[in-house]
């Protein structure tokens, strides 16, 4: 029973694992592009967390229909929130990539240790 309970939270397990994978890549990878990829994975984990918590068992899209009483809706608010967070994530990624381009232009490399050695 205990095990089944734990397995029942599998969405949250995936969240935790994806979060850790992303964070590991950000910290461990030396290549700046790979760091940004890690950052994106890290952020996507949070999207999963929000989407998971808004799901209501048997719920549908929150649109009121005539003649269908007692509908069960999933909570739309976290979806809206995460839409905003995705936009924030995309702009951060775009800015990060722009920085990598400028780093490449002025240092000629995108490997972290080579950049640190250059100045």
């Amino acid at each position, binding site marked *: 029973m205990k095990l089944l309970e734990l397995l029942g939270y599998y969405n949250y397990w995936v969240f935790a694992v994806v979060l850790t994978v992303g964070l590991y890549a950000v910290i461990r990878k030396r290549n700046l592009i790979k760091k940004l990829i890690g950052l994106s994975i890290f952020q996507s984990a*949070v999207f999963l967390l929000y989407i998971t918590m808004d799901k209501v068992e048997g719920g549908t899209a929150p649109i009121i229909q005539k003649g269908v009483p007692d509908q069960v809706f999933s909570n739309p608010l976290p979806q809206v929130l995460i839409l905003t967070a995705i936009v*924030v994530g995309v702009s*951060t990624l775009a800015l990060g990539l722009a*920085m990598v381009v400028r780093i490449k232009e002025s240092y000629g490399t995108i490997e972290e240790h080579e950049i640190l050695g250059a*100045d």
Partner: protein
Amino acid sequence: MTFMEHLPALQVVVPMLSAPLIVLLQPRGLAWAGATAAGLASFAIAIALAMAVLDGQTQVYAMGGWAAPYGIALEVDAFSALVLLLVTGAGAAALLAARVSVDRQIEPERQPLFYAAWLLGLAGLAGIVVSADAFNIFVFMEISSLASYILIAGGPDRRALPAVFKYLIMGTIGATFYLIGVGLIYMMTGTLNLADMQARIGDVVALNPILVAAGFITIGLALKAAVFPLHVWLPNAYTHAPHMVTVFLAACATKVALYVLIRFDSMVFQDRLSDHEFQFTLFALPLAVLGILVASSVAMFEGHLKRLLATSSVAQIGYILLGASFVSEAGITASAMHMFNHALAKGGLFLAVACLAFHFRDLRLSELGGAARRMPLTCAALVVCGLSLIGVPGTAGFISKWLLITAALESGLWGWSLVAVILVSSLMAVVYIWRIVEALYFQQASAEGDTSFAEAPLQLLLVTWAVALLNIFFGLFPHLPLALANGSAALLVGGAP
């Protein structure tokens, strides 16, 4: 609704909508004029809001007419009014002084974009402060962060780029941690409005997600606020940023993150989670003490003027956190005052650095010989602000250190040792400020350098001196910030409505 009631929204809207307009102002100098006008306008709004708060009214604004827990609320109370004053004040003062310095560091065709990013940063920071909604704070936090990455990387120094990249990575991790925390709280309480959260969190039965949320939010905001040991992005980012950007960001960016940390923790978690006050003290106090001592001693041996001042900022953030970690009215008052006074002192110091940069390309202390003879006014302003940073009586810095020591003594058993920490680190501040004074006044000028009188441009110098004089003014007459700081402490810890 009268015009006054719209001020909380205008505080964000004015700089935010000015930003795209300024991009269009291509002719030389116009972009600066537009940005400065917008900066001064938001400073005026902040002053009006602070006056209203001092009259005893808390300004609440329901965005789009949707009332609070459902709509997004903006709220300006004593704490937000104080932080708004320092954010918009720093923004406006730095913009006023910026023209000549920016002309030298940013190409004319990129200047409109640069000033637009500046105003977006200002709008983001002001937005964090006025917002009473946890998710809205996240969005504004990212707006201000993205703008500050652009500003820091905007200068001619290529070393700013890796520094910004590190800041971007750590800043995003911090913001995402905050987002996870907010998500977990939403999961348990079903609300994003801070006041509503405060009311509902007491009813939550399963406390584990709330505890995890408290951890994520505290760490995330500590990353943004550059609390030791999460400060590693700060020294390089501030050192290699364009000089005026350093003035603006050093004065207010990290303090806004601390503002959210203090407000979130005392509104939502303390009182409502058993032992949370004790846990918060246990977490924040050691980090604050370590930050104060380690960063001050690093600053004592730092050879580059800008990095020295940036490192000292980490120590000052330690002071602010120390005050907050007492979880007492006296502590929060000291914290809020130190936010204000440190912004004055550090803003003034970096303004003086921007003046020095006009004639000293290399800002290492060993290269600054003879500066006092060439730029006597700049150096005098730098000394005044330096004294305020140390906390000499008669300057603003003294007031907040005094409050901090009072708060430490009230905190009981640990009090005396904390007073010792504050005194030791003040002595360290004497050492590193003295090293700057020694370099400016007593060091031999390099052999071939000319020693003629060559003061910084008048516009920059005037603002620098205005800030330096404010340091003395608020050291002698601290009533205004003190009233707001007392108000915020009563609000956050005292349980006043």
